[in-house]
């Protein structure tokens, strides 16, 4: 068997060599600039160590703006707590408004991190290494932002623990396991926990790198954070195994979380909410918006932190392709909804979609469909995918479109339901806007703190992409 395999190998390799095939682009190292391993460590670790002109002026400006937004949001939340949820623009017709929209928006943003860290890892997509750390951090922060909204909306958030199933002194007052809101709580807390463990696990070797470069108190702190990592072969063996298992565990979470969130709506009978396609539709939308946010953040970070050789145009090309794919998937779901609304002959469903376009909130729908299904089509062109300004703008319109998607689905469905006498508008109040601003403030503040104190790129992993780390890189015959 050996000899026959070798003879075939010899025969096969000759034409390849004879035609002088250039190296397949996907075999090129993902990090540019022929860096040495020490250079990689320095260039990434120096930022959190405060050695590379970090934090620069842009960081302070960004922090000032986002912390102000966070402060405004904090004041609004306090006001909301003291006065009650009547300060929001809710009514008996539209019982869910800004809060649920922001909740789903932020949960969706988180999905890119899990997709990059888990699914792309299992698919051996090596380009993920340049962005996985920050995408995972973004996931954690986004889930925190999302978690704020159901809490605020409870009216009495100090009783949030009633949602946990534990033997209690409240008699038969248990949570209703058939409520999708309870599934939400369970799905999202699982998601947060697994994402946090996954993110932290990846950080352990990097904390050790930082420890070895620091002195004094810093050294101790990094030492504690690294759990005494020595980089021995045994450590690496266990690390790789746990990382793979966690990737496997996190993979179903990419699908489950937003599927459960979509269940909040799809289990109901409200026209525009009840559609069986909601779970995969929401997941595709979440990945679309998540990649849009990753691009928004990474395009700024690579410029300001000089990571152009780590997050290259090829990386951006890959991410925009994922966006194009998920935009098409969302588009297919949109069209399936229209088709079935027409096909089923359900008058309420048909009325809802007519109202969505031609009703008082019609322009929302045009933002939603235009930004999510229309504009991303320009990403078919390579020239567009490699034009950073255009990609940045598309990442912004996609985020806008995805916010409006949730807004359209949730609010325009409630606004005009079965009973025309109860049709009503939603008028967001200043508190609505303030709380939303606060969530953006929290998101960017946390992300800036992350960029300041944690290595933005996984140092240990990215070294595989520098030169000789890849087992498939050489095409010479064995």
């Amino acid at each position: 068997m050996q000899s026959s395999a070798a003879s075939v190998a010899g025969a096969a390799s000759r034409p390849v060599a004879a035609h002088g095939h250039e190296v397949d682009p996907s075999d090129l190292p993902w990090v540019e600039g022929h860096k040495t391993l020490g250079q990689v460590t320095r260039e990434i670790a120096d930022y959190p160590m405060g050695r590379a002109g970090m934090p620069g002026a842009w960081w302070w400006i960004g922090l000032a703006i986002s912390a102000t937004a966070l402060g405004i949001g904090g004041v609004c939340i306090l006001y909301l707590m003291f006065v009650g949820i009547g300060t929001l623009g809710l009514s008996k017709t539209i019982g869910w408004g800004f809060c649920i929209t922001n909740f789903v928006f932020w949960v969706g943003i988180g999905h890119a991190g899990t997709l990059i860290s888990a699914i792309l890892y299992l698919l051996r997509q090596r380009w993920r290494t340049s962005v996985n750390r920050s995408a995972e951090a973004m996931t954690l922060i986004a889930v925190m932002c999302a978690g704020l909204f159901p809490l605020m909306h409870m009216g009495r958030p100090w009783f949030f623990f009633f949602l946990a199933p534990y033997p209690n002194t409240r008699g038969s007052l248990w949570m209703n396991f058939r409520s999708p809101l309870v599934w939400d709580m369970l799905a999202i807390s699982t998601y947060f926990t697994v994402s946090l463990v996954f993110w932290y696990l990846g950080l352990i070797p990097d904390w050790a790198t930082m420890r070895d470069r620091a002195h004094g108190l810093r050294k101790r702190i990094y030492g504690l954070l690294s759990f005494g990592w020595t980089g021995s072969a045994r450590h690496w063996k266990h690390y790789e195994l746990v990382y793979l298992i966690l990737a496997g565990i996190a993979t179903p979470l990419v699908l489950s979380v937003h599927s459960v969130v979509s269940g909040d709506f799809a289990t109901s009978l409200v026209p525009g909410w009840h559609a069986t396609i909601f779970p995969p539709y929401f997941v595709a939308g979440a990945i679309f918006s998540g990649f849009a946010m990753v691009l928004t953040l990474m395009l700024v970070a690579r410029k300001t932190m000089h990571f152009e050789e780590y997050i290259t145009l090829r990386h951006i090309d890959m991410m925009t392709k994922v966006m194009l794919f998920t935009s098409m998937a969302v588009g297919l779901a949109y069209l399936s909804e229209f088709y079935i609304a027409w096909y089923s002959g359900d008058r309420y469903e048909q009325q809802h979609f007519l109202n969505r376009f031609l009703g008082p909130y019609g322009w929302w729908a045009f933002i939603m469909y235009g930004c999510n299904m229309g504009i991303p089509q320009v990403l078919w062109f390579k020239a567009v995918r490699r034009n950073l300004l255009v990609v940045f703008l598309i990442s912004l319109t996609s985020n806008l479109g995805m916010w409006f998607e949730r807004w359209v689905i949730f609010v325009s469905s409630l606004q005009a339901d079965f009973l025309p006498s109860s049709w009503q508008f939603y008028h967001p109040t200043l508190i609505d806007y303030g709380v939303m601003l606060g969530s953006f403030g929290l998101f960017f503040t946390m992300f800036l703190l992350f960029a300041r104190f944690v290595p933005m790129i996984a140092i240990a992993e990215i070294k595989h992409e520098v030169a000789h780390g890849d087992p498939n890189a050489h095409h010479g015959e064995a």
Partner: protein
Amino acid sequence: MSGPELELLSGGQKRLLYGLLGLGALALGVGLATHSGGVYSGILLGFLFMLELGLGGALFLCINATANARWHTVFRRVPEGVAATLPWAALLVLLFVWAVPHIYPWAAPGFYTDPSRLVGGVLIPELKAKEGWLQPGWFSLRAVLFVAWWAGLMSLILRLQRGQGLGGANHAGAIRKLSILFCVTFAYTFSVASFDWLMSLEPRFYSTIFGVYCFAGVMQLGFAVVLLLTLFLDAKGAFKDQIREQHRHDLGKWLFAFSCFWAYIWFFQFMLIWYADLPDESRYYVRRGGLRADVMALVVLLRFCVPFFGLASQKVKKNPRILAAVALIVVAGHWLDLALMALPSQAGGMRNLYALLIPVGTGAAFVLLFFRAFAKKPALPEPDAAYAYSRRYLT
């Protein structure tokens, strides 16, 4: 390919396949001669089973080409051979189209004017939209166009694929573009086709996820059938031991992943319909989960439980015997799933021998056509630049 022609199928295997093909043809003939009601749903299932087997291979090729994947090049002739059966399956569409008036309730004359469907002399709104859409002529035209598009585009891709690397020709760019075109158009056309061919069997039933559900089934079937045929041919020595543990492991992983994806879509369609309990939707599951819970449970067992628990371990995913057994079970599960979607609304319900024998016949035809296509080309696409990578890649 140098060396003696490989005897891919033994005499006994060939006889068995021709026997099964004959059995299917006999069942069809007897059914048509005796005007048996069950034969028409047998035609539907036979057509869909063979078509979806071919589509599974086509999707396997196109998705890999779209993603610039090279890992599968060593056994790429297998999905190519699977996809090469598409034109033959496409011919079956003519038989299907002929049978449409006997299969679909809305195709019966007088369906839209039946007094039980009129209120105040006007057709009920639930059927209003379908009056123009679900008409035998227009329905059949759509079916023919869809199948012709898939088979035609795939033939073009296969023709380019055949010449790939020969005499320095490099069609990778064109193959990739056509594959992307196939994937994008397939998503839309196949959704409509699923709504047409299976969902409209119960004209008042609707589910937006139905197209995705059928797609998930075809994907799982595609990986199972490519895996099965690759392992069979490898055992015969067709690939000169170039199929490594790595290839088996990756194929096993894909089958595992798409079994989970199928279950995910299955669960949410069921759960959301059960939860909302709208009459037009839940009637679908009352007919299946309520009346044939045994068959429904069996479908989930074959399509999800067996591959999920069977392939969870890494060791098993490298073991050709177990992989082949699981893949075979998944293929059987796909047939049962199709039967459970199609038969409960038909005359005779699930007790329909034609719905077993005719798909067995078309399935045998598929296997014979596959081997015919496979034997025409060298088993290993050695001139292709991606071949060297596929032969030795590691993960």
